[in-house]
């Protein structure tokens, strides 16, 4: 039963995410609309996207406070995710064994960054105006994931060996059964459920920015309309 639920969650995430990406990739771009000055070569565009994804270049230009908070959160999230590999992979590659301390710091940074983003949303009148309940809730959900994660590290340690067993089992398609012996175990179940919830809403929410950023025509198009003729696929006259 639980196994089924876990696979359903993963299924919704991967199929939903994949489907959105498919829609983005298939939607035609009738005209060239890069925000200029834009790179004039494909390679240049890859550089532009790289800078957007890795440094949040435009956000840096646009809003320093949002950039700091957001970079803290996303950067930390990336580290945390990498660190999580230890719970899924056995044996653990040597490289990851040393990630422990970074992982804990990153966990704190992640929750800190999220807290800042949440505060910002409450305090700045412009951002408050444009926020829907869902915008706060996603942040709370992520904070919840972060806090339960940290609590397991600092306060109530669940049985790591069992958990690792559970997770590796899950991914080797054997059955999933959750241990519930201690408060730590309960925390773990909560943590896992929140992550499940995140995965389920992912494809249906603004979290799709993670995939969509690569398909944004103002960022991913080459500025070469005079050199190479761009054809609108649905232009009746061609």
């Amino acid at each position, binding site marked *: 039963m639980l196994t089924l639920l876990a696979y359903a969650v993963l299924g919704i995430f991967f199929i939903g995410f994949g489907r959105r990406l498919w829609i983005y990739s298939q939607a035609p771009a009738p005209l060239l609309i890069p925000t200029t000055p834009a790179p004039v070569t494909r390679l240049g565009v890859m550089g532009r996207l790289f800078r957007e994804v890795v440094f949040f270049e435009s956000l840096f230009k646009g809003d320093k406070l949002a950039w700091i908070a957001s970079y803290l959160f996303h950067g930390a999230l990336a580290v945390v995710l990498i660190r999580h590999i230890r719970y899924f992979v056995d044996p653990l590659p040597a490289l990851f064994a040393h990630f422990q301390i970074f992982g804990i710091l990153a966990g704190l940074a992640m929750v800190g960054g999220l807290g800042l983003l949440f505060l910002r949303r409450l305090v700045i009148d412009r951002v408050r105006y444009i*926020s829907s309940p869902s915008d706060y809730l996603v942040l709370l959900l992520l904070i919840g994931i972060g806090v339960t994660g940290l609590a397991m590290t600092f306060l109530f340690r669940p049985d790591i060996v069992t958990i690792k067993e559970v997770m590796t089992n899950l991914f080797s398609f054997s059955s999933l059964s959750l241990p519930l012996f201690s408060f730590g175990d309960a925390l773990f179940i909560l943590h896992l459920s929140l992550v499940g919830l995140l995965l389920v809403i992912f494809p249906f929410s603004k979290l799709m920015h993670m995939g969509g950023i690569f398909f*944004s025509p*103002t960022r991913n198009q080459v500025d070469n309309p005079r050199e190479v003729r761009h054809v609108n696929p649905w232009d009746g006259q061609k």
Partner: protein
Amino acid sequence: MADYDVPEIPEDIETPSLEPGTMGHLAPYPSVEKHMKPLGFPAAKVDNWQEEGIEKLGSMLEKYKSLQVFLDICVKCGACADKCHYYLGTKDPNNMPVARADLLRQVYRRYYTAAGKFAPGLVGAKDFDQETLDKWFTYYHQCSQCRRCSVFCPYGIDTAEITMAAREIMDAIGVGHKYTTEIVAKVHEVGNNLGIPKPALKGTLEFLEEDILETTGHDVRLPLDVEGADVLLVPPSADFFSEPHIMSLMGYAKVFHQAGISYTISSVASEAANFGMFIGSFEQKQKIAKRIAEQAQDLKVKRLVVGECGHAWRVAYSFWNTLNGPFDYLDPRYPAPQHICEFTHDLYQQGALTFDKEANDEYTVTMHDSCNVARASRMGPNPGGQFEIPRALIRATCNKYVEMDPETIREKTFCCGGGGGLLTDELMDLRIKGALPRVTALKRVMDQDGVNFLALICAICKAQFTKVLPMYGIPMDTVGGVHQLVSNAIQLGAKKGII
């Protein structure tokens, strides 16, 4: 003038606190049958407009990647919120780009996303009802499609694309905007936005030839409909009749004269402007652009050169090849099309033109980058050429040049306040307030550096500023074209010849 509320010019551009509803009253005049029909739009609001509008949105999601992606992925970070001149000038929260885009996003969510269907309140989804439509009509006509918001958005979300889409949907259900539809109808009928017929055009050009002959002693031609000329020059039609636009037109003519390159203006394609872009319609854009390609072929020219017009240059540079191309009948040695600034700058670099900078010594010049040139096109081979080339021309023709606040020029330039099909009198209140950020930066260099000439390369900027700057107490003749400076400085006479 007294009826308008003109803001005080602050020391520096300030981000105001929100004042909801300040601009809720200001919708443009609705279009009427006479202007809607020729464009193939319903004459009046259709009965089942809700269904039709929602359906149109659905079909557009399948046609525009920009729309689909932008509607999905905005994270509401607010980085764009204080970047719009209309928000800065009006304080109306619906003029924050993200809030403006949300007016359409709410409807998208309601009908095209699972979350909006099942939990509209949670994700801010709204029905497409009369109230929403009214807001659309108001606030999608308070966006000049300037793309400033897209520069600062982490995903490049371009609210101009959303505005165009919303206008296209409104047209499809018979809720059009009078000014823009009227102008598009006029282009189809007469050939230009101002509705200038051929005899009047011919008269103006002859008058200008006489004027130049009188003032300079040189027989500079402004030829009309000459078959076999090398170049077809396509200026915005305002260049034929409006001040100060006409001074730039004389500048172009002198450049052609001095370089010894034969050219012609076409009475059929006497308009570079393409308001099809403002109403968002691909078909209208294409239909309007086609006239120019057809004239280029009929007149057997080898090159296409576009005059000083911002959105026209975007359409020409970025879209013509797609709309009209391929340009295989033109001379492949030259970019097709070419901007008049590129054209003049090339000639200058080859040594074909001589400028006397002292002719412009009465001016201390600053340059206002026009949105569509700055953020939606290029000049020359390198990114950013759209900033460097006009500046190089100004520096070549003037001794005194000053930049405005770097946060307000180049790709961060502020719209003049009149772009995107809003250059109409009923929106004057918006135009005045939207100009505030630009006026603030301009006033600073006027006070500090004695700037008295605002150099422009856009017909709409010129028209907007000549009207609005005086309301802020800045003299009208501060406004001029880059080729007006060229016109003043160019040395006519012994030709160096280049070709």
